[in-house]
């Protein structure tokens, strides 16, 4: 079968998955184990078809599907085989069958996303690989020196706001104490209204480190050197709360 036939088959499977999950969602009796296996089969098949077409392991759909499988499908699978989840909010949310419908809700969302990708036409124009290559060849020279300088300025500005936040809240010695104690999470110990500086610091540091990483990789092809700016930002964000603040700027939360 050629690529188009595989894609058509993937769309058909996706529709089938959508229908089966819709039926299950409105209480048609379908064995949950069948849904569990069918959903993973269809989604992985779709990802393989898309990867074959693009050769891109960071294909957006594959990332969404992978996340679904880890964050929704895997917990559902673990509960199905008898693993008891960590109690949350003092309730056993996995008791009863609402969690099964929860998984089906997630599957319906993912099937809809995949169909949106595969069925709706690109807009405003279909950017083909050939057109992209043409643009690459005929693109005017870009002054990366100016962009690199702007990114460093952004990085320094972010660093300034970061240090300013600590200085006005805790002073120099107090900041060291707060950093060692790990009590900054949630912002209870800081003065009200000062979180705006962490907002500015975060955005400047994240954006500039991203641009610096891209420019450095283009010029040096060294992964380690390229990732030094975001690694340093990650360390800077370690004391703050929030699920993903630590992994900034990997997570770009």
């Amino acid at each position, binding site marked *: 079968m050629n690529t188009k036939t595989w894609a058509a088959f993937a769309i058909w499977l996706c529709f089938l998955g959508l229908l089966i999950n819709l039926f299950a969602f409105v209480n048609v009796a379908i064995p949950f184990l069948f849904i569990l296996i069918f959903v993973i089969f269809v989604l992985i098949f779709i990802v393989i078809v898309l990867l074959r077409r693009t050769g891109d392991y*960071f294909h*957006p759909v594959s990332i969404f599907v992978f996340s679904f499988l880890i964050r*929704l499908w895997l917990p559902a699978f673990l509960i199905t085989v008898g693993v008891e989840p960590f109690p949350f909010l003092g309730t056993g949310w996995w008791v009863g069958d609402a*969690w099964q419908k929860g998984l089906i809700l997630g599957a*319906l969302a993912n099937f809809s996303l995949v169909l*949106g990708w595969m069925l709706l036409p690109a807009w405003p124009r279909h950017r083909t690989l050939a057109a992209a290559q043409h643009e690459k060849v005929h693109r005017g020279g870009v002054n990366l020196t100016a962009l690199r300088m702007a990114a460093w300025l952004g990085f320094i500005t972010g660093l300034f706001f970061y240090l300013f936040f600590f200085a006005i809240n805790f002073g120099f010695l107090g900041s060291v104490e707060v950093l060692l104690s*790990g009590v900054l999470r949630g912002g209870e110990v800081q003065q009200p209204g000062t979180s705006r500086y962490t907002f500015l610091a975060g955005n400047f540091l994240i954006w500039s480190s991203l641009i610096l990483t891209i420019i450095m990789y283009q010029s040096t092809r060294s*992964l380690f050197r390229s990732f030094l700016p975001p690694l340093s930002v990650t360390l800077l964000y370690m004391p703050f709360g929030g699920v993903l603040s*630590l992994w900034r700027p990997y997570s770009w939360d």
Partner: protein
Amino acid sequence: MGVWYSGGRIKWSRRAILLALLLVIVTIWIAPGIRAYRGGGGIDALIKAFSPSVVLQDNILFWLEINMLHSYTYGVIFGPGSHTVSSLRYLFGGYTAYFLGVLDEVVHGTYIVWQVTGVQPDWGIHTGLPVDYYMSFGLAPMMGAMLLLGWGLKVLYQQLALPGGARSVARQAAYVFLFWSCYWLVYERGLGLLSLYESIAFLGIILLASKLLHGHKIKVSQRIASQTYFSH
């Protein structure tokens, strides 16, 4: 992701794969320690949590940070139309509450915690677009929104990330951020579109600064060139 696109495709050498694996292992390894440190335990708790017994016994990371099934389960339990917020907040996110004068309005994740515990909390679980839209509008609008999101992702990908497009640093950075905003919208916070706008604003500031710096350099070089011309 940005680095992947900037290189066309990274050649997966053994060293790169080992480096990536090491990064994943270190990330998982230190996660419990970071939570202990942030819980007020400080550096001591961070160091103690490096012990293999702590890391291997810790399954809270998976069930509370990675797992989202509980959010979807509560979404189903409460059902369509159970909770909604001001319409503009779906488009512009959290800070819109200030301008709409609805700062006391709770979002879906907070509503869930409130209903489950019976006490109004000042925090909430992350729900994501499917749960938020399902609880607000029902199944069909949620699926419609996801369909549109799939199309939006396709447009972003084809315009910004395909080879050539990815050679432009600005396009590539914009793609990484826009993609992440979409991901955040679906898997973390359905009302989080504002982070997308603020990201664009900060990218704009840096790009504008680069244009200004570039213009400054051109003016200098033109002056030097004109001096050179007249000196001859």
